[in-house]
Structures are given as structure tokens and as C-alpha cells.
């Protein structure tokens, strides 16, 4: 066992996992062993034997570059699972590696130059690309964004042609590029070019290879070191209200847009298709370390997002001891990739590597730093790589910007046709192109939908058409948002979840049906999908073979934490206030319970309509039962026949909600029950009036009371009047102290109620023809007394706007003479 054959990879933990076992005595001596320590290679994948045939140079090279993990990755490539990789047994191998560091020439051509291109890696990639394309090809037909492809299809085809042409003229002659260009499939472009994060993951996965192939034709920077474009002059005359964005001192992404007087968001003067390919063609190759390629190729199949990559120890995104002059590039690239990955969520590192790798070396003349801004430009201006296009042409902050080519690049505008857009977000740029098409297709639909607002919108639509920033949000994206919003509206029971909406629309429909004006503007109702209610019975987890019951607490099966024991207090040690408070609380609870019953009862009609035939009797029975319960709650559950006290009822009526509850319950009660309620109310009216002084809710009872009254027989009416007026009084009491009546008369509700009752009596009287009535002396007496009282009441005491029913006049005319009738008339403002 070679002591020195320590695992060279352990030294650099950030390169991670794959640690290849040194060629210990276990296996046949490694063919690379001759390379020995000088290369830093004492172990390699060939420890496994047989695999080293082509390996030594590569391994040597990579290690020379310090790309230990790359070799490991390559090894991983060969051994599908990590388990197969031989692990290092020696812990102190890293010291050995440290010494090897100095030996490694990190600037040599093999690492950073043309020699860095690895055939092996290329082949491997192509193999995988084929694999990918097979399922992708099948998926292509089912592309949901087919219509987007349609939009871009035409320009992209033209783009492809131009790309081919350009590639031939390329100065790079990078074999990798050439090969990749040739392998680019024709159908690749049309695939999912318009994808974005709005699409599902399946679409995004298709982005990978086809897009990459388009990056191949990287053209020399010098081709595009064009001078300032003419349209820049036009930028100066921008709308002055568009002030410049605050200047950024440092840019988070590669090649942040050059600081300019005109803000980023200004629309381009020209939008043209040729600009598309110009963008593609202007990629500025970035000088990337070749080792990164190899590192990337490993997780190819894993598809880690850059965010994940950061966390993975083997991630090439993380710091690698490159020389400082190179590190800014990497940093920027890392960040760009992070951004791009964060946005697209699907950028495979291998794609990025491919990009970088292609551009690797063949630009010795151009300073790498200047080119870093261009990495984004290399990729197609399509969904998955949008963030990369945030790269502007000029490098934002360089530690040592070389003097020579700088002016070129800083003044670089890749296409003379379009001003100012290279710094734009690629999606923005793409959309600027699309806007023409989309505006034609869509602006009608969108702006026309404003038709609801009326004709004055016409001018607004005119403006909208001229708005160059319109439709930044694609139709697809709008659909996506509305889809989410619709999903939120799904409910199993819309009447439960969205009661007011449903009722509102019912009301509207009833109104429009009642009006029947012909085909009125139909109020479109939002049809929300009704999800079937699924009953899930939850069974708590039970472990087999466990001793005793293990309690696993979950959201469906919460654990009992506190043993709450209800202790009722003794009556004697309660103070008066407490008793009062408790009683009030009990009343409140009763009200709430009755309210629940009431809501259920009110809902029965709807349920009745929805239910099956067989269920209906049961529903009716339930309903009746509930009504009885309600009444019992109201009046107090006295088992006896006679309801001796109105106390319970009065308690309820003292509370505002109780009064409203009674008003709502009344329609459901039987006539006798309703009359009972009425009588109780009338009997205690002064008390109620006093209590209602603050709430003033009693008038809400008027309407249901009147409905009830309509069905009442005369006897009841008589007793009602009696209760209301508290007549006849005892003979001994002086006539002026009928406080009951006085109070009743002075209150709006009381007076209205009295009027109602009297009017009902009059109705009955006039209807009946008098046979029954004449026999009823009580009524006559009461009326006489009542009218006398009414006469006596000072007019100022009466509440003002109480219009008496019309037939009261005839009522009073029976019992009083004309003079008094006139008096009454004026007093009561009849």
C-alpha cells in the first residue's frame, strides 16, 4: 500500500464526494502509476483496472489543473454509482495533495487552453443528448406552448439559417463548436422557445440541449466590436419624465447594463426580426476554465439547479482556487447562473458548462475579463436562460480593465438595428419583438374587454394601442394567474363557503327574471367547479409489534395535552353581579344556539330542492323538529302547559341580537306560537321600549308582526289591544296614569304596533259584517277606552313620522262623534 498514494481528492473537500481510492494493493497496479507523484496522480479510476486505457492523459491533465474532483467526476461517469468508486482509506492523504498543489501549473494550456476540451466529455454529452432528444421529440407534439412556438417558429427558423451561415464564418474554429453546430437538430429551435417559469416543469426540461446547440456559433468579439450605434441619439430625446434609475455601484449579474441617461425600460425605436439573430450572434465568449466542464458533465443527469449546486459539495459553482484575476469571472458567472437558475429553475449545469467550454480558449487576443459580460448573450433569447441575458455588453466593474479593447466593448452594441436592447432582459427583448404580433392579435381582446366601462374608453384603447409596453404580461401568464385564482375558488359546498356571492347572484337572477325585459345584458356568473366532498376517515398510525400504544401526534390526531375539568361553582358564593352576568351569558348562548337552528331551517328549502325524493320527508321532519326547538328556546323550556313567565323571552328580547332573532323566527312559527310571541311582546312593551332605547331595533319586528297579525282572529286581536293599552284599568286608578299606554304611544314602535293592531281589528270588523263583532263587547269597550286615551294624550308626545293606517279613521268614527274625530285626526295626523 502506498502511503503516498493518498487520495488526492480529500484535500479539497469542496470538490466533494467522489474520492477515489489509491491504487492499493488490492487491485492490479494502475497503469497511470508511472505518472506518479509528479503529476499528483497516484490514484485514479484505473484502480479498477481496464478503464485506464484512455485515462492517463486525461487524469493527468485534470489533476495538473487541480481538477481533482473533475477526475473524480469523470470517474463517476464511468461508475454509475458512487459505491463502485474506490474510497480512500488513508486519512492523511491531503497533506500529500497539498504538496502536489505547487506542482500543478494552473495556468497552462491544457487547463485553460484548447487542450482543455475533452473529447470524452463531448461524446458523453452527445450520447446523453440523443437520449434526451428521444423523449423530448415525442413530447414535442404535445407541447402546450405550441402556440408560442408558432409565434416564434417563423423567426426561429430564419434564425437557424442565419446561425448556420454565421458559424461557417466563425473565426473560432473550435472543434467543439463546430461539432456542436453540426449536431444541432433542425427541430430544436422550435421547441419550447417561449417557455418560462409559467410553464410546468415538463416543458422546462425540454429546454436543455436544443437550446445549447444554438449557443455554439459564438462569434468573435471583434466582429461585434461595433461602434456606437446611431440610434443612440434618439435615446436622448426620451420622455423627460422617465428619469434615470439610481445608478448601481455594483452589478449583481454579469455585465450589468451600462449606466446611461436613459432608463432601462425605454422602448426600442425599432423592433425587427433580424435583431433576433443578431443577438444570438453577438455572444461574447467567456473565458471559462475548462475544468469546469468536466465537473459539470458529471451531474448532467441530475439536473441540479444552481441553487442546489451551491449546496452540493461537489458543486463547481463554489469557490475554486483559481487565481484572483480569474475569480471575478467566475463569481459573475456563478451569480449569473444562480440568477438564471433561480429564474428558470431548470438550468442544467451541463448546459452552462457547454456554453463556457465552447468559448474556452480560442480567444487569446481578447482579454477574458471583457468578455465575461457576454456569456449570457451566447444563449438563445429564450425562456430558460433569461437571466443570462441580463448581461450587458460592458463589464461593470473590473479590477484591471485592459485599455485596448475596452472602448470597443463598452461601446459595443451588437446590432446596429436596435438601440439599447442588449442590456434588456431577454424576455423583455423578445417581447418587444413579439409585441407587434401580439398587439395585433391580442390587444383587441384585452382592451376590448374593457367594453364594460362604456364608450368613453375608446380613447383609452387608442392610447393602449400605442403603448409600447403593453402586453408585457403574456396571455399565457394571465391565464396562469387566473387559473390559480379559479383553483382557489373551488369548493365542496359553495353555499357554505361563498354564501353571499351565491345569494347575490340568486337575487340578481330573480330580479332579471321578474323584469323580463327581454334579452337584457346577461350577468355572467362565475361558474366555479364543484369539487366533490371526499370523506376521509383518519386512522391514527399504529405500529405493529410495539409494546403498548405508541402515541403519534399529528395534525389529524392531536394529542390531548391538558385535562380540562369543568367544575360548576356553588350558588351561594356567587355575588349578585355574577349571577346577573351568568344569566346574561346563558341567554347569549341560547341566542346563538337558536340562531344556528334558524340558519339550518332557512337552508332547508334549498336542500329540499337538491335532495332526492326519498330524503325529503326526512328533511321535512328535521325541519319541523328544529322549529319546535327554536320556539322552546325562545320561550323557555317550561314543561307545564302554562307559560307562567315571560322572563326567558324578555331576557332574549333585551339583547339586540335576540330581537333580530325573533324577527327572523316569526315566519316559521305556527300562528298560535306566533301569537303567543306577540302577546308576550305587547304585554311587556314598556319594559322592552325602555331597554331598546339604545339599540332601537324594535322596529325590525314590525314587519313580521304585521304578517302575523294578518292571520290572527279577532279574539286574539282584542287581547292584543288589551295588552298593548293595558286597558281596562281598575276603576280606582285615575285616568291620567295609564303609563303603559302612554309609553306605548310615545314610542314609535309602540304606536306603530298599536296602529297595526287597530287596523287589523277594523279590517276584521268591516269584513265580517259585524255578526261576530257585535257580540264581542270587549272590543267595543276597548275601543272606546282607547279612543278616549288617545284623545287625552297631548299631541306633542306622539312620535312624529308615524303614518297611521288609512282605515283607522273609519275605525274611530264608529266610536266617537265627529268633533272628537276631528280632534283625533289632527292629533294623529291622519
Amino acid at each position, binding site marked *: 500500500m502506498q502511503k503516498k498514494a493518498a487520495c488526492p481528492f480529500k484535500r479539497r473537500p469542496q470538490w466533494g464526494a467522489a474520492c477515489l481510492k489509491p491504487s492499493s494493493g488490492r487491485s492490479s497496479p494502475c497503469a497511470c502509476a508511472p505518472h506518479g507523484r509528479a503529476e499528483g496522480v497516484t490514484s485514479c479510476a484505473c484502480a479498477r483496472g481496464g478503464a485506464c486505457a484512455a485515462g492517463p492523459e486525461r487524469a493527468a491533465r485534470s489533476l495538473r489543473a487541480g481538477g481533482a474532483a473533475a477526475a473524480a467526476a469523470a470517474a463517476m461517469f464511468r461508475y454509475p454509482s458512487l459505491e463502485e468508486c474506490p474510497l480512500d482509506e488513508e486519512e492523511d492523504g491531503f497533506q500529500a495533495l497539498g504538496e502536489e498543489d505547487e506542482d500543478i501549473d494552473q495556468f497552462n494550456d491544457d487547463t485553460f487552453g484548447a487542450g482543455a476540451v475533452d473529447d470524452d466529455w463531448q461524446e458523453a454529452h452527445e450520447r446523453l443528448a440523443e437520449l434526451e432528444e428521444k423523449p423530448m421529440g415525442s413530447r414535442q407534439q404535445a407541447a402546450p406552448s405550441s402556440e408560442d412556438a408558432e409565434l416564434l417558429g417563423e423567426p426561429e427558423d430564419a434564425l437557424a439559417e442565419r446561425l448556420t451561415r454565421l458559424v461557417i464564418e466563425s473565426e473560432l474554429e473550435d472543434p467543439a463548436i463546430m461539432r456542436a453546430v453540426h449536431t444541432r437538430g433542425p427541430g430544436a429551435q422550435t421547441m419550447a422557445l417561449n417557455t418560462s417559469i409559467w410553464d410546468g416543469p415538463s416543458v422546462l426540461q425540454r429546454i436543455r440541449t436544443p437550446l445549447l446547440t444554438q449557443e455554439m456559433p459564438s462569434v468573435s468579439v471583434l466582429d461585434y466590436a461595433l461602434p456606437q450605434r446611431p440610434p443612440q441619439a434618439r435615446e436622448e430625446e426620451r420622455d423627460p419624465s422617465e428619469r434615470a434609475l439610481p445608478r448601481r455601484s455594483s452589478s449583481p449579474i454579469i455585465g450589468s447594463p451600462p449606466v446611461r441617461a436613459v432608463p432601462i*425600460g425605454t422602448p426600442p425605436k425599432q423592433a425587427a426580426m433580424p435583431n433576433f439573430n443578431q443577438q444570438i450572434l453577438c455572444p461574447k465568449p467567456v473565458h471559462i476554465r475548462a475544468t469546469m466542464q468536466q465537473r459539470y458533465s458529471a451531474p448532467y443527469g441530475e439536473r441540479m439547479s444552481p441553487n442546489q449546486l451551491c449546496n452540493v459539495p461537489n458543486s463547481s459553482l463554489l469557490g475554486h482556487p483559481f487565481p484572483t484575476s480569474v475569480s471575478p469571472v467566475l463569481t459573475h458567472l456563478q451569480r449569473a447562473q444562480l440568477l438564471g437558475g433561480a429564474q428558470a429553475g431548470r438550468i442544467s449545469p451541463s448546459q452552462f458548462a457547454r456554453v463556457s467550454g465552447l468559448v474556452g480558449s480560442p480567444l487569446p487576443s481578447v482579454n477574458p475579463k471583457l468578455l465575461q459580460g457576454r456569456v449570457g448573450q451566447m444563449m438563445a433569447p429564450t425562456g430558460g436562460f433569461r437571466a443570462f441575458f441580463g448581461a450587458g455588453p460592458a463589464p461593470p466593474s473590473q479590477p484591471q480593465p485592459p485599455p485596448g479593447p475596452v472602448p470597443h466593448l463598452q461601446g459595443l452594441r451588437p446590432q446596429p438595428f436596435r438601440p439599447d436592447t442588449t442590456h434588456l432582459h431577454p424576455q423583455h427583448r423578445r417581447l418587444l419583438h413579439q409585441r407587434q404580433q401580439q398587439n395585433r392579435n391580442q390587444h383587441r381582446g384585452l382592451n376590448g374587454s374593457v367594453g364594460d366601462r362604456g364608450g368613453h374608453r375608446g380613447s383609452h384603447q387608442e392610447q393602449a394601442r400605442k403603448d409600447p*409596453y403593453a*402586453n408585457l404580461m403574456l396571455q399565457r401568464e394571465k391565464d396562469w394567474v387566473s387559473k390559480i385564482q379559479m383553483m382557489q375558488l373551488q369548493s365542496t359546498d359553495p353555499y357554505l363557503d361563498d354564501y353571499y356571492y351565491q345569494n347575490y347572484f340568486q337575487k340578481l337572477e330573480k330580479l332579471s327574471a321578474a323584469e323580463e325585459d327581454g334579452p337584457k345584458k346577461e*350577468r355572467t356568473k362565475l361558474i366555479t367547479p364543484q369539487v366533490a366532498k371526499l370523506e376521509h376517515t383518519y386512522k391514527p398510525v399504529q405500529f405493529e409489534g410495539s409494546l403498548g400504544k405508541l402515541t403519534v401526534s399529528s395534525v389529524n390526531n392531536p394529542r390531548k395535552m391538558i385535562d380540562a375539568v369543568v367544575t360548576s361553582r356553588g350558588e351561594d358564593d356567587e355575588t349578585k353581579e355574577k349571577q346577573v352576568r351568568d344569566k346574561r351569558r346563558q341567554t347569549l348562548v341560547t341566542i346563538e344556539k337558536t340562531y344556528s337552528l334558524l340558519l339550518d331551517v332557512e337552508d332547508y328549502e334549498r336542500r329540499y330542492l337538491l335532495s332526492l325524493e326519498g330524503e325529503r320527508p326526512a328533511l321535512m321532519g328535521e325541519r319541523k323538529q328544529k322549529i319546535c326547538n327554536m320556539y322552546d328556546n325562545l320561550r323557555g323550556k317550561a314543561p307545564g302547559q302554562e307559560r307562567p313567565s315571560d322572563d326567558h323571552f324578555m331576557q332574549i328580547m333585551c339583547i339586540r341580537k335576540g330581537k333580530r332573532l325573533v324577527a327572523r323566527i316569526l315566519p316559521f312559527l305556527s300562528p298560535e306560537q306566533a301569537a303567543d310571541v306577540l302577546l308576550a311582546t305587547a304585554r311587556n312593551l314598556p319594559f322592552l321600549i325602555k331597554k331598546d332605547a339604545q339599540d332601537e331595533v324594535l322596529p325590525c319586528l314590525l314587519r313580521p308582526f304585521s304578517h302575523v297579525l294578518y292571520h290572527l282572529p279577532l279574539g286574539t286581536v282584542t287581547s292584543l289591544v288589551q295588552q298593548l293599552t293595558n286597558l281596562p284599568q281598575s276603576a280606582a286608578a285615575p285616568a291620567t296614569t295609564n303609563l303603559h299606554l302612554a309609553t306605548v304611544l310615545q314610542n314609535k314602535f309602540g304606536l306603530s304596533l298599536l296602529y297595526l293592531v287597530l287596523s287589523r281589528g277594523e279590517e276584521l270588523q268591516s269584513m265580517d259584517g259585524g255578526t261576530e263583532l257585535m257580540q264581542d263587547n270587549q272590543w267595543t269597550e276597548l275601543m272606546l277606552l282607547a279612543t278616549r286615551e288617545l284623545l287625552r294624550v297631548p299631541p306633542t308626545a306622539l312620535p312624529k313620522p308615524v303614518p297611521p293606517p288609512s282605515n283607522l279613521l273609519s275605525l274611530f268614527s264608529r266610536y266617537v262623534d265627529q268633533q272628537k274625530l276631528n280632534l283625533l285626526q289632527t292629533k294623529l295626523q291622519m
Partner: protein
Amino acid sequence: MNYMPGTASLIQDIDKKHLVLLRDGRTLIGFLRSIDQFANLVLHQTVERIHVGKKYGDIPRGIFVVRGENVVLLGEIDLEKESDTLLQQVSIEEILEEQRVELQAKQESEKLKVQALKERGLAVPRADTLDEY
């Protein structure tokens, strides 16, 4: 196309000029370019309008991305009626100055109020979790 009849959705408001009131009291006016399900907004050509009394001043801000939870309300601006305002536009410096003066006056009155309450032994009402303004 009426996206969702009977509901309130911002989709119909896209590409229109809006006035947005934020929780910290700022008023933004801009073209609503993009939304999402949380009502995060992307405002374009945004202008922050500061109102003091009968005067207002506009500060151009560019593009705003507003997180939905910070929006109090927003409403579309009728471009035709936009100019019929009783308010008087002033320069930015002037309005900022006015705002500073107003803030100072408010702080002084607040101080006096707190002082008065303290003298009477009453507690100062605290509005901890309310929004800024």
C-alpha cells in the same frame, strides 16, 4: 374576454394606469404591468406622489415591484379625469420641504399630547401593530 365574472381580479387592470396606496403611506402611480396570485404588482414608469395639504409633488421612480401584502388599495386612474384635480403640483424640493414641516408639526403636537397625558397620569395609547400611517 371577461376572465372571471363576478369576481375581483387584477387581470383586467393590466397595462392601465393605477394609483397604489402602500401600507407605509406612500402613494405610487404607475402602469400596472404584471400581477400574480398574491397581488404582487409590477408598476412601470412609476411616480411617487407626495401629498401635503393641497399640494403634491411627483418623484419619478421607474419600475416598482410591490409585494402584495403591502398594498392597502389600488385603483385605476381615469386618464381623462386625471387632469381635473384641485390639487396643485409643485416641485419635488418644495413638496419634500412641506412634508418635513408637516411631520415636524405632527411630532410636536404628539409630544404635547403625550406630555399632557403624563401630567394627568394617563397612559399613552399605543398603536403597535397598526400600519405606519
